């Protein structure tokens, strides 16, 4: 058996998240959002969280519900403002949540760097813009670059399509998005899946996240969700 534990309940899967933790939350809008794990985190009760995710919640579900519950001190994301991000909008305007905006590619690359042991990297994205303020710059091959540092999580909450008992994961279509990089970037990676299969049931050529990156897996029932929200 590998270090990955397959747990019976969502509550076991999210146990132990500490106040003040940095939590990486997968998903791009609703696709790939780990709804069950977030609901479990709300029940679990950890607060004062820094949440790193591409968006800042949609409708009243998932990340929006966590925000509504008052557990989030700061959101680090690329795109908080959406048609249905009213929970975040209200908290932000009321000064009840901080916001760090990171260009989406720098967000993904900083997460990858955290997982890959890269100390820092130079990227052209954001150079010469207001998001470059305070950042170290360097001209490489005639082009200005910003120095960006890794973004590491204490916990990652991820939704994947299927896991084997070793924690190897496959995803489904564009719900893959941030899952694979976040899995590498957190001390404890927690994954909800639709299906857990025996070792050997996944094609080794098609595994996207090897089990080495996965600490806990829990199977959840399929949930229907739409662009208007999960239900």
């Amino acid at each position, binding site marked *: 058996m590998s270090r990955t534990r397959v747990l019976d309940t969502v509550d076991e899967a999210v146990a132990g998240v500490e106040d003040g933790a940095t939590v990486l939350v997968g998903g791009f809008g609703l696709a*790939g959002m780990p709804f069950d794990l977030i609901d479990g985190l709300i029940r679990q009760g950890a607060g004062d969280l820094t949440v790193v995710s591409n968006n800042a919640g949609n409708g009243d579900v998932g990340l929006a519900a966590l925000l509504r519950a008052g557990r989030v001190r700061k959101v680090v994301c690329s795109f908080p403002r959406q048609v249905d991000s009213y929970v975040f909008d209200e908290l932000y305007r009321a000064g009840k949540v901080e916001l760090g905006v990171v260009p989406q590619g*720098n967000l993904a690359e900083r997460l990858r760097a955290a997982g890959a042991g890269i100390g820092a990297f130079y990227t052209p994205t954001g150079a010469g*813009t207001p998001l470059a303020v305070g950042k170290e710059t360097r001209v490489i091959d005639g082009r200005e670059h910003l120095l960006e540092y890794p973004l590491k999580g204490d916990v990652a909450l991820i939704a994947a399509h299927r896991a084997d008992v070793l924690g190897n994961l496959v995803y489904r279509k564009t719900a893959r998005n941030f899952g694979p990089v976040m899995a590498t970037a957190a001390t404890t990676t927690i994954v909800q899946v639709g299906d857990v299969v025996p070792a050997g049931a996944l094609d080794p050529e098609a595994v996207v996240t090897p089990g080495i990156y996965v600490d806990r897996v829990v199977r959840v029932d399929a949930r229907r969700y739409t*662009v208007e929200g999960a239900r």
Partner: protein
Amino acid sequence: MSLTPDELAARVARDIPAGAYVNLGIGQPTKVADHLPADLGVVLHTENGMLGMGPAATGDDVDPDLTNAGKVPVTELPGAAYFHHADSFAMMRGGHLDVCVLGAFQVSQHGDLANWHTGAPDAIPAVGGAMDLAIGAKQVFVMMTLFTKSGEPKLVPSCGYPLTAVACVSRVYTDHGVFAVGRDGVTVLETFGTTVGELSARLDVELTVLTR
């Protein structure tokens, strides 16, 4: 006659080379896809991890796990490939996309782009993938109205809005004309229902005309 949004999308589509890998930004640029003939072999990239994106999904084809960057359900074409976000943005940043089409608040005569923030103090800042797209593609096309609703030019000497990227735009497609921008300033490539003289009178940038 100036172009309708649909005619503008068709005009942009005409400049997309056969077989190109293309990213279409959220909003108006998405409509360019409707004017790309299937036999042109253009492959669409969406930043949320896919090449070979097909048209918007309808009815039973709607799959919440398959959306474009605007979170609209889309479809998959034969030969598609999925990848994660770091790989998707590596593809963009690494200069592998042939063309990216973006909307804009302002474009400067030297190709600076402002399309992510109006600078309004109460606006919630949200950049998404705009900065990555702007610096990454081999060619960045902007598609926009040439003037704001109140008549202010959006092709400007230098951007007043916060920048998305510096010197990244090569072409600006507008309802009134098509412009090349860059180190040498603005060149008028085409006008729609107007003349270079009329445009000159309304814009604060110097216009060069290609002579043949």
